[in-house]
């Protein structure tokens, strides 16, 4: 009987090419197992072989995502593998992201089972845990010995199409998939037992956790306004005349950053509003009603505030999903930090 073929992905470090100095290496392929693949091949036994090992530098992968992926897929495809294993990446962040990315792509392109492994706090875990089976490893390569049998067990099950049990039983990281099972006692009885524990102040683990509630603690107040740089952000839909970036009048998918350098006030010749949620007549006439540039300039001169950013950030609030608004914020906040903004005035209609 022909052996099941495994192709294994590792990075520059585990291939022996070197650490940071080799992180820029391009994809290459080696016959048979390399580095940690030797332990995998031994564990999987006679019916399996590590047919090839593909290697790529972590930086090269991160900086050339599409090219690197395409090239690697081409290499992997030639070996017609039955199983693809990446890593484990342990606590290496860039390696973890590379393992997750390549696994997803192999699964999609080649339609074969894939496996990777990471330490719980590897940033790759949160990116890929819902989509992939990520085996739970220790935070350093010293954990390889313990990880190998887990790879073997899950790999065999995947190749043979056997049922994958729960994360604790199998040793992978929880994927957030709700799976039915028959409990020993019926729901009403379990609920009563939990309630009695709760009344006694004992631990009463929920069978279904609530989603995380995203509240942010208030930032510390400004202590020295006269030396603070302020930026204006608005959801009031003020844009330069002609709306150069085509920000939508509602359900915005974009935001814009526009200059107010050298301006004393918001002039209606320069700015307009595209906001679809209210009567625009007043604001069209006087955009300062949304961006209070005139009074902020006064205060700047008076020394009430230290400085004013020479731009404002804008989008429309009507119909805009909280998801989009969050993404805008995450996108522009880096700029605010870079520009040493000490406080933000956000205006909404």
């Amino acid at each position, binding site marked *: 009987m022909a052996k099941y073929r495994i192709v294994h992905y590792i990075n520059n470090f585990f291939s022996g090419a070197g650490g940071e100095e080799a992180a820029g290496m391009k994809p290459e392929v080696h016959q048979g197992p390399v580095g940690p693949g030797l332990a995998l091949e031994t564990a999987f036994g006679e019916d399996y072989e590590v047919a090839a090992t593909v290697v790529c530098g972590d930086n090269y992968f991160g900086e050339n995502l599409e090219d690197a992926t395409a090239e690697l897929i081409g290499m992997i495809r030639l070996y017609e593998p039955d199983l693809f294993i990446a890593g484990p990446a342990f606590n290496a962040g860039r390696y973890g992201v590379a393992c997750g990315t390549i696994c997803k792509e192999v699964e999609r392109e080649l339609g074969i089972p894939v496996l990777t492994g990471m330490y719980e706090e590897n940033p790759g875990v949160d990116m890929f845990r819902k989509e992939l089976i990520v085996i739970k490893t220790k935070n350093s390569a010293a954990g390889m010995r313990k990880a190998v049998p887990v790879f073997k067990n899950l790999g065999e099950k995947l190749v043979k199409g056997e049922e994958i049990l729960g994360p604790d039983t199998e040793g992978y990281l929880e994927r957030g998939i709700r799976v039915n099972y028959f409990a020993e006692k019926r729901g009403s009885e379990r609920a009563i037992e939990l309630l009695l524990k709760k009344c006694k102040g004992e631990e009463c683990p929920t069978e279904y956790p609530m989603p995380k509630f995203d509240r942010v603690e208030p930032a510390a107040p400004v202590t020295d306004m006269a030396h603070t740089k302020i930026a204006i952000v608005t959801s009031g839909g003020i844009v330069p005349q002609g709306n150069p970036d085509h920000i939508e009048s509602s359900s915005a998918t974009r935001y814009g950053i526009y200059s107010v350098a050298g301006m004393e006030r918001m002039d209606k010749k320069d700015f307009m509003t595209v906001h679809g*949620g209210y009567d625009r007549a007043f604001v069209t006439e006087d955009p300062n009603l949304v961006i209070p540039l005139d009074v902020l300039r006064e205060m700047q001169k008076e020394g009430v505030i230290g400085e004013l950013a020479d731009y404002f950030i804008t989008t429309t*609030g009507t119909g805009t999903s909280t998801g989009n608004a969050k993404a805008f914020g995450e996108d522009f906040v880096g700029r605010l930090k870079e520009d040493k903004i000490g406080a933000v005035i956000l205006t909404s209609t």
Partner: protein
Amino acid sequence: MKGVMVTNNYRCLEKWEGRLRIDYNKEWGYLDVLLATRDYIHRGYFLLTHPLAGSVKPNQTPFKSVILAEESLEGAEEFRDLALIEESIEAYRKFMKNRPLPGWPEQTAEDFRTIDLSLMEGVMSNPMMNRR
């Protein structure tokens, strides 16, 4: 009380036109009604009915009606309505991803209109809806 019913069910339009403002659009799908509802909330309106009223899941019925008003009828926690509509839109997307709405024959569609109408009848007959 200044109310508005956002709907894509013409039977609601027929029944209550003149009683309150009806924002009816026959081109709207279930999601469009939810999005129009969200626009009203963003403009300061308050929900009077739950956006997912009727436990017919969003990928089963094409029809949806929601009533809002310019004033709130209850001392609800302040972020309630926005949270409700966002959760409803999220639920819609989840179920549609699961399995999109089938193309119902007209008789079936009419039955769904009846159910939606019935959900609104319960509300429209509530004395609080007649408050001035």
